[in-house]
């Protein structure tokens, strides 16, 4: 189980004006900038749950994941995962946890994947039988058996992501942090990764926190989502419930000569808003529809939840 209470993280950096003049000035007087990456976050996740963590760039997703993975120390607050404080980096915790970052490789680039797996076998002390079984299972389900002996840098991006997934799951972790696992992948590779994660989740029942910019990943994998905005949770609940949050709203897609834009409007104000729009713009097209899950989440990410 993951239990997080009032977790906070502030980063301190120094502001510098551009150019040589700015650099010289900064040499004598630096302006301190305090950024609150996380402002008191609390939640619980049960074993077997897969939760989508959504937020705009810089909202605090990755900071949260890195604290939970034990990479970054929080400024204050509590977190217990499987009974451990992640940032104490107990080996018994690290042996049961895995982190996959779509943008950072963990396998040796110049070597065939199988070599990296052998090293991981030693690091995680996976016994021979389990190692063989897991390699076979993972390579089969990810359909990557023939690429295990090829140098990793010669593989395609999609194949590399599959290798990364294999590397992260060889030791059958109980807690998985998946940070943007489908970034940069084409549609079919994205689908394959999603399909695999779904099967893996139902077979091994780990706790999984998935962050992604692709709503498809979230919609297909996560019954529960947490939306983070400027370091705070603005929504934590079922994905199916999120639609009700904006049940009162309609979405207008307006196309004028210059641009296309979208606005959310309350049902009761629909008439007045549309006539207002027609008056002030040269409208080519107007579309009124129910907001999709993507629209709603985007709106929550940008504006938070509006009170009815």
């Amino acid at each position, binding site marked *: 189980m993951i239990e997080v209470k009032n977790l906070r993280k502030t980063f301190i950096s120094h502001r510098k004006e551009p150019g040589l003049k700015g650099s010289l000035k900064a040499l004598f007087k630096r302006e301190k900038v305090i950024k609150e990456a996380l402002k008191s976050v609390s939640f619980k996740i049960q074993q077997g749950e897969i939760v989508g963590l959504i937020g705009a760039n810089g909202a605090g997703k*990755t900071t949260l994941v890195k604290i939970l993975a*034990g*990479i*970054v120390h929080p400024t204050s607050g509590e977190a217990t995962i499987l009974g451990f404080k992640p940032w104490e980096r107990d080996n018994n915790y690290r042996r049961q946890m*895995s982190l996959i970052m*779509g943008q950072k490789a963990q396998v040796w680039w110049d070597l065939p994947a199988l070599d990296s797996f*052998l*090293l991981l076998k030693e*690091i995680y002390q996976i016994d021979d039988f389990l190692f063989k079984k897991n390699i076979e299972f993972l390579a089969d389900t990810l359909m990557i058996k023939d690429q295990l002996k090829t140098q990793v840098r010669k593989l395609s991006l999609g194949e590399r992501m599959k290798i990364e997934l294999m590397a992260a799951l060889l030791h059958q972790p109980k807690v998985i942090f998946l940070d943007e696992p489908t970034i940069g992948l084409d549609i079919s590779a994205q689908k394959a990764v999603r399909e695999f994660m779904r099967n893996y989740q139902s077979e091994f029942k780990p706790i999984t926190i998935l962050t992604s910019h692709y709503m498809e990943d979230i919609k297909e994998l996560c019954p529960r989502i947490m939306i983070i905005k400027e370091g705070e949770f603005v929504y934590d609940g079922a994905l199916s419930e999120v639609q009700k949050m904006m049940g009162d709203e309609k979405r207008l897609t307006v196309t004028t000569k210059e641009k296309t834009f979208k606005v959310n409007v309350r049902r009761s104000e629909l008439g007045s808003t549309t006539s207002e729009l027609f008056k002030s713009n040269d409208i080519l097209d107007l579309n009124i529809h129910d907001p999709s899950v993507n629209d709603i989440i985007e709106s929550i990410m940008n504006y938070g939840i509006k009170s009815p």
Partner: protein
Amino acid sequence: MKRYLRLYFFFLQFSFSKALEFRIDFFFRIAMDIMYYFVNIALFKILLLHTPLIAGWNEEQMMIFVGCYLLVDAINMTVFSTNMWWLPFYINRGELDYYLIRPVSPLFFLSLREFSANSFINLMIAAVFFFHSLFSYSQDWNLLSLFGLIILLINGSLIYYCIQMLMILPVFWTQSAKGFIDLFYTLGLAMERPDRIFKGWLRVLFTVVLPFGLIASFPARIFIEGFNLQTIFHLILVTSGLWIVVLSVWRKGLKSYSSASS
């Protein structure tokens, strides 16, 4: 311990198979290091043309000392240098992440993962010179003192590594590209001088604070002048103190590691 040895065996295997792919680099490094050895040996040979003794050592003894520091340098080039080169980049770019989540000491991983197979040949050349200087020594010595010397030189390599780490680790706070590594290379010349030439505050600096004098000069001195409890005690005290400082700076550094976001 056994597990760490097995892990190290993997690092060796990986590094050798990688090195064989880059042949030009392979030969270039050998040529460069042979030049470095030549310059060092020649320097003292020329000095000794004008004076019979340097810091109390004659030519044979100086060559033993030169053999000692060339050997330590070669060990460090082979075992640590590539890792030390990458470490500041890893810290700055937030690439420590995958090392911190493994159930293995990240310090072990980051310090030893890249074995410079390229420099391995140079290590052999340095070893040949080292043994040559010992076997041409006209005074008696026995296997026990040779064994002692090798242990002390391994300890010297550890000191070299520790000082280097102390110059790199400030990167955690300064976020600069290299930390104070240039300072390390400048002051590092102190390793290539007999410790007796340092007097006063310089002696404190190079035998206690940044103990370059303990890397090769103390071991050579014990081999040449015989076992000396005070020198051994000094070595043990300073080495363990240095190691404790490195570990605590490393831990403090990790605490403030902010891991550049992906």
